[in-house]
């Protein structure tokens, strides 16, 4: 088997007295779509930030695309960053740039494409994430919450990255938009061999596109396919997948 795209070993995170992760292990192979779930405040966003190198874990080892994210030279970090895209939980768009300009930032930074092609790519991304064309010329403060999320996704997709990190991509989207988003991720994943690592509470997304699911409980990860997790005895996991919403999503998938 090829080396995993993301490899986490023995990761520990502490904020003062508070222990957030205590021995997290994770392997994500190429082309996989992994969903990360867990209660609020269990450290999903923190795990994501550590994997992309925005935060340094208290202990443990993280490798992305075969490179240790902690000891990278500046040039290695830049080339690695061009190969992944990240959607932040609250969008994190540049507030002084329009949506189109936001999407163009990585394209201008990492490629030497002619401006008209960059412009067209940016416009296509805007359309692909389901934003109306006129949204491209608006500033983030002029968008609705769901639109900001889509714009953030468009920026994350700008470079057609190999790995996509998504922090709650469908939160704040209407159900139709969320389904279209699942479809978009699915088609990109197939044609590009995209690896997707996403934090989500959207059970429909989990059923629709995730190959495996990682559950963050008791400061550790429990990983498996949906069917494996459905048989888990852990109370939180049981409640999660067998609760009313879990059953509804499962039924929707079955029909």
């Amino acid at each position, binding site marked *: 088997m090829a080396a995993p795209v993301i490899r986490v070993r023995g990761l520990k995170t502490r904020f003062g007295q508070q222990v957030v992760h205590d021995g997290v292990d994770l392997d994500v192979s190429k082309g996989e779509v992994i969903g990360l779930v867990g209660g609020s405040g269990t450290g999903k966003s923190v795990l994501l930030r550590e994997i992309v190198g925005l935060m340094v874990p208290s202990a443990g080892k993280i490798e992305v695309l075969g490179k240790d994210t902690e000891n990278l030279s500046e040039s290695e970090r830049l080339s690695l960053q061009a190969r992944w895209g990240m959607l932040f939980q609250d969008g994190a768009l540049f507030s002084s740039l329009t949506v189109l300009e936001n999407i163009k930032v990585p394209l201008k930074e990492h*490629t030497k494409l002619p401006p008209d092609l960059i412009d067209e790519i940016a416009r296509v991304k805007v359309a692909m994430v389901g934003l109306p064309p006129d949204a491209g010329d608006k500033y983030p403060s002029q968008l609705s919450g769901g639109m900001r999320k889509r714009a953030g996704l468009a920026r994350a997709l700008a470079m057609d990255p190999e790995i996509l990190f998504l922090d709650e991509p469908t939160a704040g989207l209407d159900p139709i938009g969320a389904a279209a988003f699942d479809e978009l991720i699915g088609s990109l994943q197939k044609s590009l061999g995209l690896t997707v690592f996403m934090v989500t509470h959207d059970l429909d997304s989990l059923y629709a596109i995730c190959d495996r699911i990682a559950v963050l409980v008791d400061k550790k990860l429990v990983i498996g396919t949906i069917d494996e997790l459905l048989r888990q005895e852990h109370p939180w996991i049981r409640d999660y997948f067998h609760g009313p919403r879990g059953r509804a999503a499962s039924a929707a998938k079955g029909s």
Partner: protein
Amino acid sequence: MQTGTLSANWEENQFVLAASGRWDIASAERLGPMLRDRMPGRKGAPVCLDLSGLTALDTAGALLLDRLIKRLRGQGHVVAVVGARSDLCALLKDVQRAAAGAEPKNPAPAERRPAFPLADRVGRATIGIWQDILSMLNFLGLVTVTAARLLRTPNRIRLKPLFFHLEQVGLNALPIVGLLSFLIGIVLAYQGADQLRRFGAEIYVVNLLGIGVLREIGILMTSIIVAGRSGSAFTAQIGTMKVNQEVDAMRTLGLDPVEMLVLPRMLALLIALPLIGFFANMVALAGGAVMAYVYLDINFGQFARQLQIAVSTTTLFVGLIKAPVFAVVIALVGCYEGLRVSGSAESVGLLTTRSVVVSIFLVIVLDAIFSILFSYIGI
């Protein structure tokens, strides 16, 4: 990994374009010119776009294919797309659909060019200034009304933020204000002494210092430093809260932003500025005294005696009476610009700059008005 290429050749009556390799964003730069070169010369010939060699496709690559197809069709060719893997084909379709929807429909109407651009700009700027003055006065009124309401229920005055801001704008400003005032005192004494020595009137350097510092320089310097230090901080703090929608949240919680944000800052500055001003006066005089001793051999006893002759409490009072007015102006401008911040981080920066410039401008203008006023009533 094979980068994307496009090869062209004629098969019987058909022009075959074969795309192969990885058509992704990394190859897009090389593919651009290739697309332009590989064109069928013959008008209207059928074109077959063979995608069977394609190993990978991303949106940038799909967009290039879409452009190619559009260009060929635009030149009247019949284009048949064959051999694409089904997943790549799906992406191409997605991108084509997105690109069709993405075309800017009605480009923004061209700006009407004014006949006299200079006059136009001057006019707009003038109206802008006038509107600025009006809305600043409006804000002053709002703050006054809120303050008056608060005076009727003084137990609603929030002491904790008040003391916090007192420390920020008052106590923490002492080192820098002290240092600069001391230096100003030294410079004034030195320059004055140089001139006065020609007339053998060195001792009058004390009068110069006393009047100059107490009436004008001390409080003016202090106000300018505080405007740069605290006025800008007010704008940046309130502006960032505005960007994070904290101010809106306050309103929905039934809290008045003027009462919560503006009044504590203004009150703190109102208390602190006269005190820092007095401190600055004393330190500047001390600086002057040191210089007089070193340079002119005027000892501290002589200095104190001459100072007593030169100035009265009125001199001190005339200087310090300006402090509360300057405090109100600095706090008002700082908070007003902060509340005007909209949306972006950039506007926080712009308005912070503005706040400092406007408050220093107003402080100096008011100082001049005070001078005229005082000389008119003869003090």
